[in-house]
């Protein structure tokens, strides 16, 4: 095919992020400077974010067979870039030197490079409409994350988490690849729409079912859905806090977006067994994720389990698959990303400057309110938002998912969603009330005094303010999500 100027404009966000990766790499080779590397990365991400505006003018546009750059792709791309930007900012606060600590002992600059590369993979993923694009994007997203998770490699937990994630993720990819091969063998096409069309024409065979099932296993690994969730708490706990944030937000967001596109464009639901399987996975994710989180005393593990449950809620909208569903997924992802960033952000700021282990034990947060009211306010809003209480963004997301569920009459899923939320409340409230309890003789663990002046602190306050504003006046987000639709074929 012939590339015109329009194609380049449409690809601008991807091109800019690629260029950023190259520039950051060269800058590191030229001179190691933590601040400079951060500035370059952030500037590149912001530019890419801004370039979405001109790109939207030419959307929707098909660039080769692999990528479909429509409003849906750009909406999730914007979310992804924002999440990456936030994670990079948190990483800057986490790694940097502060009064009272010498900062991260190893090389700092490569973390930004890895994050940018991973974000690029996510961008490919959200816009891919072809199994090859899906695989390339997914690997580009995951491989840098192995390095990120094990970034604090002199810390045993981080290294262990990195290896665990690598092995399981590679196994997941293998499943995915095998599933793709089986599908291709049966349908003779790799594009989502082509697969859908050819499978709709013929009877579904054992090969197709096995193929779809294996692809589901592979994507389930990345999304840590039950029963493929076992790596989640360990990896979240072991990875440095900003990396956990990246893993919980940017990486999962991109995978879910591509899953939604796959599900919408090639509804290989003949016989309905896929729907039943997904329903079971959703119910199991909601219930098991919430139940396992109940007794966690480690905040990162708790958030890990809670993310399993949240992706269970998202599956409700995915299975609903009609009417409000795409919109609901967009809104829920946006609110979830915002909330997770806030929660992990507080952990990051509490943990910095780097001290070997992150401040992730719940007791370290006891009585935080009376020492750090603003940081606590942020975490409180995030916990309420994760629990889906009105006046926070999380409520709007949950409202949307329930609306999508009611619209397509998924009563079993709604029932488990309600039970899951009730269970979830218990541990969110436990975290929340811990922040306000005062008991004598507790260990004082403080964030650096000037946290509010750092970029990370300001960003965190902005995230909290946004979570509150979107909870009270969600109309702008809803309009964005409403227009984030697939290109009609």
């Amino acid at each position, binding site marked *: 095919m012939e590339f015109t100027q329009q194609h380049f404009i449409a690809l601008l966000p991807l091109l800019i992020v690629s260029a950023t990766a190259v520039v950051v790499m060269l800058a590191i080779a030229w001179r190691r400077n933590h601040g400079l590397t951060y500035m370059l990365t952030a500037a590149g991400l912001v530019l890419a974010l801004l370039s979405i505006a001109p790109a939207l003018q030419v959307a929707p546009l098909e660039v080769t067979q692999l990528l479909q750059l429509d409003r849906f792709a750009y909406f999730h791309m914007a979310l992804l870039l924002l999440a990456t930007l936030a994670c990079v900012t948190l990483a800057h606060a986490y790694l940097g030197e502060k009064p009272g600590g010498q900062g991260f002992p190893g090389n700092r600059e490569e973390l930004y490079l890895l994050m940018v590369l991973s974000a690029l993979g996510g961008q490919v993923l959200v816009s891919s409409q072809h199994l090859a694009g899906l695989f390339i994007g997914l690997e580009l997203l995951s491989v840098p994350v192995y390095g990120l998770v094990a970034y604090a490699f002199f810390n045993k937990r981080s290294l262990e988490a990195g290896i665990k994630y690598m092995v399981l993720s590679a196994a997941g990819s293998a499943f995915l690849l095998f599933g793709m091969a089986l599908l291709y063998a049966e349908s003779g096409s790799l594009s989502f729409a082509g697969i859908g069309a050819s499978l709709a024409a013929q009877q579904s065979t054992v090969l197709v079912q096995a193929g779809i099932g294996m692809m589901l296993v592979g994507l389930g690994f990345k999304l840590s859905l039950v029963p493929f969730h076992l790596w989640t708490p360990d990896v979240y706990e072991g990875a440095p806090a900003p990396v956990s944030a990246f893993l919980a937000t940017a990486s999962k967001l991109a995978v879910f977006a591509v899953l939604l596109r796959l599900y919408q464009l090639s509804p290989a639901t003949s016989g309905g067994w896929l729907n039943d399987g997904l329903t079971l996975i959703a119910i199991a994710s909601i219930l098991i994720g919430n139940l396992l989180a109940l007794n966690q005393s480690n905040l990162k593990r708790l958030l890990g389990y809670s993310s399993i449950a949240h992706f269970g809620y998202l599956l409700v909208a995915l299975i609903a698959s009609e009417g409000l569903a795409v919109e609901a997924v967009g809104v829920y992802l946006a609110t979830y990303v915002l909330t997770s960033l806030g929660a992990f952000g507080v952990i990051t700021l509490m943990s910095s400057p780097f001290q070997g282990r992150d401040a992730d034990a719940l007791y370290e947060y006891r009585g935080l309110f*009376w020492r750090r009211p603003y940081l606590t306010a942020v975490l409180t809003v995030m916990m*309420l938002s994760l*629990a889906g*209480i*009105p*006046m926070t963004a999380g*409520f709007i997301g949950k*409202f949307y998912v*329930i*609306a999508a*569920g*009611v*619209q397509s009459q998924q009563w079993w899923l*709604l029932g488990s*969603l*309600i*039970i899951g*939320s*009730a269970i979830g*409340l*218990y541990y969110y*409230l*436990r975290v929340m*009330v811990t922040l*306000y*309890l005062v008991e004598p003789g507790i260990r004082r663990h403080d964030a650096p005094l000037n946290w509010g002046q750092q970029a990370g602190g300001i960003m965190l306050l902005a995230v909290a303010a946004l979570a509150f504003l979107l909870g009270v*006046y*969600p*109309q702008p987000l*809803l*309009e964005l999500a*409403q227009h984030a639709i697939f290109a009609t074929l």
Partner: protein
Amino acid sequence: MILPWLILIPFIGGLLCWLVERFDQTLPRWIALFTMTLLFGLGLWLWSNGDYSLAPTPEAGSTWALEFKHVWIERFGINLHLALDGLSLLMVLLTGLLGVLSVLCSWKEIQRHVGFFHLNLMWILGGVVGVFLSLDLFLFFFFWEMMLVPMYFLIALWGHSSEGKRSRINAATKFFIYTQASGLIMLVAILGLVLVNYHNTGVLTFDYALLLNAELDPKIEFLLMLGFFIAFAVKFPIVPLHAWLPAAHAQAPTAGSVDLAGILLKTAAYGMIRFALPLFPEASADFAPIAMTLGLIGIFYGALLSFGQTDIKRLVAYSSISHMGFVLIGIYSGSELALQGAVVLMIAHGLSAAALFILCGQLYERLHTRDMREMGGLWSRLPWLPALSLFFAAASLGLPGTGNFVGEFVVLFGAFGQWPWIVVIATFGLVLSSVYSLAMIHRAHFGPVKTEGSLRGLDAREVGMILLLAALLVLLGVYPQPVFDTSLATMSGVQQWFSTAFSQLASVR
């Protein structure tokens, strides 16, 4: 424009309380007191100026004494739609009054983090006023859930932990989970109603007035009604779903108990009268015998358990379950008189339960126990307090001359025409309520003296609060006509919806 201010005033006042805490420890109390007085004053001003013969009825549609509407979330047709009629006004007045009292009764009790305490207190009350005024179902749900968070903090942070270290946190969590989970069921029902209406008319709206005309399939109507009913039943509380109430009451600080018993329970009754009955009249008429039976069970179960308590606050808490049983019977009887009686009973119970909880709080401040086995003989050791307790115990058992008597009598009298057997059985509940009320007075205030030492008498603030409540309760008992007049229009509207449904039901059978 005054309606949004009724909601905003407590929210702004609460924020101010928190902000000034660092300068002065007493200033938040004064700000909170001023805020609540302002709210109450505005309520009284509205009462004297408004025309409360306007209320929604089946023929006239939705007419209101005051209305406010502003677009909020266009995507779903959600508006900031507030409106006031006689029923909402009475509830707002009750909220303002009990708000003033809950600030006053925590004047000495709360010494830690005064500003943050008043922030939570004000936000609860703001949320409650929002529930009483909102006419958009989304907005209603928004406030319904929102007020849980500050209440949670109130119980978890300033509560008492009598039975072990974490009992107040457990009580608060239980309260939150019960109400939130049932709230989500209501959200599903709300969305179901909205989407059915959207399916029929093509208009996506959460507006009360439009949804009143939604045409529902009887089976779906029944399910949706059940969704609303469960959410209200938890807060009411109706017996199988009441388990959070005694714990929350026992562990809450005095102001928390006053708000819980006085106002939060009333939001559930209000929700039934405003939403469950008019939106689903046929299903409600169908369900009425079951609801009234549940009310009967509540009356007896609450009374029996109340009698068995040793903790004085738990005793009062269980008595609330018993009293709310009468309210439930009044609401579902389908008679205008009984509905009006239910409103009077709600107000009277709000006043008397608040007074009893304040008295319990004052006892606790002096004795540092709520266990009645360790009290006894207080009549000779304390002036004022035992006598006043006796008065409110008598009010609670329905002594003529108090508002409770008027309420219970009118409920039973109104319901008798259609449901003679239920009324006959419910009347025996009154006997049990005298048993536990008098037992409370006997155990706490009479008998041998258990502990030595002199007890501090009541100061002017404490006596003043209680006397004010006593005076209002007697006024309500002797001259309840203004309340009847104000709630008349609303209640006759609800009754018309309901009686049409009843007659249809009768013709089917």
